């Protein structure tokens, strides 16, 4: 890797250095965890450079070092050939680096204009800064298809538009190097295409762009070069045109990836869950589910695909008893109350619904609780965990936890350890063990493998299929199309609170699903 960077440098001994950014021997440790280990990378000016790797490979840490959020333990940063220490974000901005974070750093109740000038004002008074920014923004939106209403409040903008504000912020600060961290996670394929057009336009103007992603398709589509990271190290940099998704995937994981899940054809039985005209409003009164209907049969996995934020979370919340809804839902023929008494997590569990929530840190686990306390979570009223009418049987609970940890290979198998001390994969295994071992009639499972390592992904996928083969109904929600494609027996796509039709995974393809995810009805 380092050699490659050096040779590249000798070839183009031009007056202006060929590399916008060079990182040399960057290392960073958090306690015992080595997040970055001797990273070398050279990004030629005027290119789009992809950095790809799994969750936890160290991509974001590396970029945070580049943006002055973390200080590297060792190594050097060169900007345009100049050694440039970046102790804080201010220095990064001064060096011409702009960053678009995965979670936008916008003030929700400020206007676009106010967000753009924040921290880059011209003087102590606002009026002149605002006037100038208005003019600059008009120019930028003309040049790069970056049109947003400068006076709109951020909270009223779509996610795609909010992202444009982030890009505008960087450009307003005259960034020459733009880093985008997982920019398409919240975009529809259409919005993503628009983003890539913007990035190409910026590249044509000589800007350098670093695109961090774990999606191979984007790398293949948009980048000139790609660097692959694995477990904190840089395993290689290649020209995109000379690589293939397969070879990159192998570099990422370090071995051949089995994206296909082995499973027998489904043998669907009777209808377990019947949903008719389900509607959900959020706390602001906005309709998030606009009347959806579907059913799931015993021994079947229904996969819900879609860009995050199109109502999937609300669907799980309503079925899991966490959110009020209207419409009609029956489980094995019995009505499920959707509001008022009986519309809560406890009633759902006793009705035979288990729920692996999308966000285990916010919902599925109490991070400060021990593993055994978490195993009782949601099932704390279960008679087998009670000593008598008054007291819980903590010893029985610990024993049960030990057994579950053994079955699901949770490491370390210590029931008294706090949940926060486990890795993401092992945390998820605790949640999955708790819910699947209930032997539910219906399993709701959201983003089952988010932030989970490859080994645990395979394990969890197998458990889901095994549950299906026992004749249970499973509702799977995931933003990972691969996961939906390989696990589901039927696929529904969600867009803007509605279901965009059912597809058979055997006969559909990513392209068709992508169109549906963008709200384009491919009904034929």
């Amino acid at each position, binding site marked *: 890797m380092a050699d490659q960077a050096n040779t590249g440098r000798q070839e183009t001994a031009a007056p202006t250095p060929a590399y916008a950014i060079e990182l040399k021997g960057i290392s960073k440790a958090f306690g015992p965890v080595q997040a970055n280990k001797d990273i070398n990378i050279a990004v030629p000016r005027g290119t789009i450079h992809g950095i790809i790797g799994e969750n936890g490979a160290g991509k974001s840490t590396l970029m945070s070092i580049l943006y002055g959020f973390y200080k590297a333990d060792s190594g050097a940063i060169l900007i345009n050939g100049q050694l440039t220490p970046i102790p804080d974000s*201010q220095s990064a901005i001064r060096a011409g680096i702009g960053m678009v974070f*995965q*979670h936008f*750093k916008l*003030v929700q109740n*400020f206007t676009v204009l106010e967000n753009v*000038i924040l*921290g*880059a004002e011209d003087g102590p008074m*606002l009026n002149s800064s605002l006037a100038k920014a208005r003019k600059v923004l008009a120019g930028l939106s003309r040049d790069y298809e970056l049109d947003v209403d400068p006076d709109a409040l951020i909270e009223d903008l779509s996610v795609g538009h909010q992202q444009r504000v982030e890009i505008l912020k960087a450009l307003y600060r005259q960034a020459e190097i733009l880093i985008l961290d997982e920019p398409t996670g919240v975009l529809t394929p259409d919005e993503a295409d628009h983003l890539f057009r913007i990035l190409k336009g910026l590249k044509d103007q000589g800007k350098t762009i670093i695109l961090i992603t774990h999606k191979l398709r984007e790398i293949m589509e948009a980048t000139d070069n790609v660097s692959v990271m694995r477990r904190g190290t840089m395993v290689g940099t290649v020209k995109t045109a000379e690589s293939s998704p397969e070879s990159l995937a192998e570099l990422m994981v370090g071995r051949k990836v089995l994206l296909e899940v082995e499973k027998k054809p489904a043998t669907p039985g009777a209808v377990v869950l019947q949903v008719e005209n389900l509607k959900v409003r959020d706390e602001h009164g906005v309709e998030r589910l606009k009347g959806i209907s579907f059913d799931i049969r015993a021994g079947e996995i229904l996969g819900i695909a879609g860009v995050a934020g199109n109502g999937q979370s609300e669907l799980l919340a309503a079925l899991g008893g966490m959110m009020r809804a209207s419409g009609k839902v029956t489980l094995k023929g019995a009505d499920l109350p959707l509001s008022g008494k009986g519309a809560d997590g406890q009633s759902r569990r006793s009705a035979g619904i288990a729920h692996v929530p999308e966000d285990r840190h916010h919902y599925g686990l109490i991070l400060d609780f021990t593993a055994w306390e978490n195993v009782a979570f949601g099932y704390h009223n279960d008679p087998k965990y009670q000593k008598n009418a008054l007291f819980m049987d903590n010893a029985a609970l610990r024993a049960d936890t030990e057994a579950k940890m053994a079955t699901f290979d949770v490491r370390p198998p210590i029931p008294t350890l706090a949940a926060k001390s486990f890795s993401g994969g092992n945390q998820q295994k605790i949640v999955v063990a708790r819910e699947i071992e209930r032997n539910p009639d219906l399993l709701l499972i959201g983003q089952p493998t988010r932030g989970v390592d490859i080994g645990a992904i395979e394990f969890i996928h197998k458990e889901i299929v095994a549950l299906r083969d026992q004749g249970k109904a499973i509702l799977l929600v995931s933003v990972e199309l691969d996961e939906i494609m390989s696990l589901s027996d039927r696929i529904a796509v969600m867009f803007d609170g509605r279901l965009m039709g059912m597809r058979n995974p055997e006969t559909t393809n990513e392209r068709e699903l992508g169109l549906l995810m963008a709200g384009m009805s491919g009904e034929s």
Partner: protein
Amino acid sequence: MDYATLLQILDSTLRLGTPLLLACLAGLFSERAGIFDIGLEGKMLMSAMASGAVAALSGSVWIGLGAGICASLILAGIHGLASITFRGNQLISGVALNFIASGITVLVAQALFGQGGRTPPLQGAARFNPIDLPFAEALSSVPVLGPFYAEVLSGHSILVYAALAAVPASWWLLYRTRFGLRLRAVGENPAAVDTAGVSVVGLRFAAVAITGVLCGIAGAYMATALQAGFGREMTAGRGYIALAALIFAKWRPWSALGATMLFGFFQALALRPDVVEGVVGRKVPVSLLDALPYILTVLVLAGFVGKAIPPRAGGQPYVKER
């Protein structure tokens, strides 16, 4: 109730509403920057003692005011240290500082003057005295408005007018300057400020310092203008009422003026049970009038008077994350 009585009550309203207004604006800066401060009470008390004591010793109310502001700033600094630097619990820090202020003011006043924890009565230049507004005398004959000008608006100490002037000044600072933009941003989303290369810690400390200064003025007003000297627990929960007024005002300067004057009006009424009896038509227990601002505050908090949305990042220490 006749017009003269009403004017008297409105005059008391302005007098009693002023410390609430100053404290409310103080809280506004802190909370707009994302730092909860239930220690307004303690800062006022500390300043009241310091200003009362120093004014008594030096004979100059202005030196007293300076001392009051400094004393309040020290507490503000500790609160900043606990809630910004060490990311502690902001509510607990406020509670703690209120206790410390409650005890230490008596300790120091007793050590200095030996008068049972009070400061000696202030006179002359050691006190903020009423000033008459121009033409108050001449205009008082104008019907309705004349007496209002002469009786209610005129004849207060300079700090009352300073407090009133602080309302537009706060508005201008918050909504028309770079500092205000950043301050509001840091209370809504500190990460946005941080990634824009502006120091979250610096902004929050600046806000806490403004809070200290304004609470200092409020406390000095209590000891050197409203009363002639410091007495133990003399702020009597005003810091908490100011906090409630801040919620009532939805964290906005002009509304803060309205809210604090309303609460000042209730305090003024509590001083005149005879008037209340005359209006209501039966005897009202004094303790009910005393409790009225608190009861009203609870009603406000219960959301029976509009919905209050606090700054989004309020009360949460800022921890860098990606």
